[in-house]
């Protein structure tokens, strides 16, 4: 293939987890550049999410949209990624301005891409511009060349994100696949929908095939597709065991060995993620009324056992292999089925390999009222091949199903029978979404935009007010800031309502998952305790996304020593191993609090971007009522015993609840709305924000974030704020 643009370079060796170099691609001009990280950059922004945030803060503006040429698509691992001595080290971040939210989004993804990118000499890749034809970026650390080529055409059989990626890897590996070459791709669905994903493909010699992981949330694949960047291929033959070149190799090995021992001893007796993957969560979520069913109306269903983990283990996870997404992870929770015969859709009868399902994909299917494991597998594969987020796809389809159920859509709007539990309808909507056809074109816009479309049509048909119709849809349209909820019902956990509402990217649980310690453990009985948790957990979780690590070995494998600590849920004994690992890699002597402070700087920077993009105010943190409680009477009826007990607890022993169930439901709605507002006040205080959710000047100054742009934003938000810049621009 003749390159459109080529660049020769000498790969920068890794030292202490960093290369201190960025690869910058301008697709408009086909320009390739290698730049040095500015002095102090890594100390301030750490890596991964932090690098993506800083690059997007500096290089985009309030006017930047997801498809603007200046929008930056950042892919960055972190200093702790690429370390086989330590579990869970193959993660990287894809960050950009989202097509769904209009503000910063990032999604983490496993595989070999980021480790290989680091071995090629880069801590981060930043792509701007829009190509005038579909292109592929090829980074070859062996020859020291970076090329932009016209995207190869592999024919109609290889148009999808998985099939195209496999053809590409075979092409560039000379036909013999190895672990030293990896790719990221998008699919045709990303060209139609706002929730396109980035697939990360790598060769697995045990399964003797290419496996894939996904950066699913927020439409990063849509941005990549819109830029005309079909794929990125990266290769390096350098040894992975020295991939991070840590300052203290013995310290890394010691911390890694200790964590691997905790995992090997505890996981088989706890969640058993190594055998069952995250599908194990389905059973527990169903038990505690947390599994989304019929667009989050209900949290439990008698048919849910049909999609419990042992079903997938027996019927689909054919080899029962420990499917880690990177070397050295003995948790290895990714699961795979090698031979699934499709029964529906345009590729019916084809035998495919399915990487998954994860719990979130199972939940997306139950959200549509479907409990068929075969459909879960097929939905999983088609979404990956089309390049669509299983979560946003399922939640938007569920929303449209409920619009039909409640009469907001009629058969003329839909064109076919769309209802909960109807597999053929869900299947059709999936394929129509990937192709941009009919109702699928609306579905591909996500819940936020689908609400507006439904409201306009319903109001026009019924001579009703669009605003009033939209207010009804807002009760059950499960999105915040434009992003669809991930797969947990929060009606019985006020803390997790905040976990979703305050999440800076929108309602994705990677910032806070407090359901069990709140709803089941009852460890957060006061607003203050909830607020403390809603500050602490997002900060430590942000740190994982900055350094290139998976958080599951910390959060889903309980170290036995945690039982002796004051807050077992924080799993401090395992976190101490992470602190040791960080210090040994980069040569620092930081405490856990130092790492949390580093994360707080990143969270504040993300907050600033949200404010700039119009998603940073108190109103942006408001969640749909269905996330707070029973939006409709049928939901109240299904859990009346719980809601009545909750109401009595709120009223106290001296006050009697209304006799009429309809009145009780109405009172519950009022009290829950107030409780969420009270939680907002408590959390904003804990975070050093104003009551309108704006960071205080002194809060930003403490973290060195008061550059000109930040001061200007705060002045706009608060006319009384100081006008001058109070710290040097970083």
């Amino acid at each position, binding site marked *: 293939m003749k390159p459109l643009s080529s660049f020769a370079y000498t790969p920068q060796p890794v030292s202490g987890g960093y290369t201190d170099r960025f690869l910058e691609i301008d697709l408009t001009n086909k320009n390739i550049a290698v730049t040095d990280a500015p002095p102090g950059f890594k100390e301030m922004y750490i890596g991964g999410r932090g690098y993506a945030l800083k690059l997007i803060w500096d290089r985009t503006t309030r006017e930047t949209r997801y498809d603007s040429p200046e929008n930056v698509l950042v892919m960055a691992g972190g200093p702790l990624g690429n370390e086989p001595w330590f579990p869970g080290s193959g993660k990287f971040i894809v960050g950009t301005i989202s097509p769904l939210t209009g503000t910063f989004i990032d999604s983490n993804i496993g595989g070999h891409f980021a480790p290989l990118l680091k071995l090629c000499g880069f801590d981060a890749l930043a792509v701007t511009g829009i190509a005038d034809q579909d292109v592929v970026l090829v980074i070859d650390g062996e020859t020291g060349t970076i090329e932009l080529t016209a995207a190869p055409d592999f024919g109609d059989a290889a148009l999808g994100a998985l099939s195209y990626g496999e053809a590409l890897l075979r092409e560039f590996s000379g036909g013999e696949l190895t672990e030293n070459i990896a790719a990221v791709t998008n699919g045709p669905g990303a060209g139609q929908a706002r929730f396109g994903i980035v697939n990360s493909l790598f060769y697995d010699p045990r399964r003797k095939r290419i496996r894939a992981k996904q950066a699913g949330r927020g439409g990063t694949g849509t941005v990549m597709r819109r830029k005309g960047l079909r794929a990125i291929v990266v290769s390096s033959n350098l040894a992975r065991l020295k991939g991070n070149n840590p300052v203290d190799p013995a310290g890394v090995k010691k911390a890694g060995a200790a964590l691997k021992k905790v995992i090997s001893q*505890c996981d*088989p*007796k*706890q*969640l*058993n993620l190594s055998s*069952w993957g*995250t599908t*194990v*969560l389905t*059973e*527990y979520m169903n*038990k*505690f009324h947390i599994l989304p069913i019929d667009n989050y109306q209900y949290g439990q269903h008698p048919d849910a056992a049909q999609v419990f*983990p*042992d079903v997938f283990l027996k019927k689909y996870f054919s080899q029962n292999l420990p499917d880690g997404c990177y070397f050295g992870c003995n948790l290895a929770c990714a699961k795979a089925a090698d031979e699934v015969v499709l029964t529906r859709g345009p590729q019916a009868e084809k035998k495919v390999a399915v990487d998954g399902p994860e*719990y979130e994909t199972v939940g997306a299917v139950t959200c549509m009222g479907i409990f068929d494991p075969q459909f879960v597998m097929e939905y999983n594969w088609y979404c990956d091949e089309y390049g669509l987020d299983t979560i946003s796809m399922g939640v938007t389809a569920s929303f449209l199903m409920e619009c039909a159920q409640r009469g907001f859509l009629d058969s003329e709007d839909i064109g076919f029978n769309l209802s909960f539990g109807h597999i053929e309808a869900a299947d059709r909507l999936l394929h129509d979404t990937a192709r941009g056809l009919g109702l699928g074109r609306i579905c591909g816009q996500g819940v936020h935009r689908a609400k507006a479309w439904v409201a306009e049509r319903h109001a026009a048909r019924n001579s009703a007010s669009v605003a009033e119709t939209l207010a009804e849809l807002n009760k059950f349209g499960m999105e915040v800031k434009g992003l669809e909820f991930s797969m*947990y019902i929060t009606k019985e956990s006020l803390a997790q309502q905040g976990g979703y509402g305050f999440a800076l990217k929108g309602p994705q*649980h*990677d910032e806070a*998952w*407090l*359901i*069990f310690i709140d709803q*089941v*453990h*009852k460890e957060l009985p006061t607003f203050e305790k909830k607020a403390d948790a809603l500050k602490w957990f997002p900060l430590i979780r942000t740190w994982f996304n900055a350094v290139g690590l998976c*958080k*599951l070995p*910390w*959060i*889903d*494998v*309980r170290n*036995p020593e945690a039982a002796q600590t004051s807050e*077992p*849920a924080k*799993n401090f004994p395992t976190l101490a191993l992470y602190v040791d690992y960080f210090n040994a890699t980069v040569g620092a002597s930081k405490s856990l609090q130092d790492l949390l402070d580093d994360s707080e700087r990143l969270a504040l920077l993300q907050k600033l971007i949200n404010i700039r993009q119009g998603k940073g105010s108190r109103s942006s943190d408001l969640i749909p009522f269905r996330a707070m409680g029973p939006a409709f009477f049928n939901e109240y009826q299904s859990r009346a015993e719980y809601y009545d007990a909750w109401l009595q607890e709120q009223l106290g022993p001296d006050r009697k609840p209304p006799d009429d169930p309809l009145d009780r439901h109405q009172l519950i709605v009022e009290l829950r709305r107030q409780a969420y507002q009270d939680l907002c006040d408590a959390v904003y205080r804990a975070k050093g924000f104003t009551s309108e959710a704006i960071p205080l000047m002194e809060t930003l100054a403490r973290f060195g974030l008061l550059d000109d742009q930040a001061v200007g934003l705060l002045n706009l938000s608060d006319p009384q704020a100081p006008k001058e810049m109070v710290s040097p621009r970083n």
Partner: protein
Amino acid sequence: MRVSVYLHGLHRAAVGTGQIELNLREGARVTEALAQVMAVYPSLPLADKSFLVAVNDRVSHLEEVLQPEDGISLLPFLGGG
């Protein structure tokens, strides 16, 4: 008195059922209930306390005194992915 023990995930798979009914003396504690379960299903990994105990869906402890018709659940530590 009659008490139910609910098993999930690993525990359910180990014994092949999701629910065990027990007859206990009045005033029995959770630990006595689990001892009965282990006597019937010695393969259950209950000895090293690598699980949480919930009574009526609320996290409890081994020394809680049970009431008739109580439901005991054995749960893993869940932190969310």
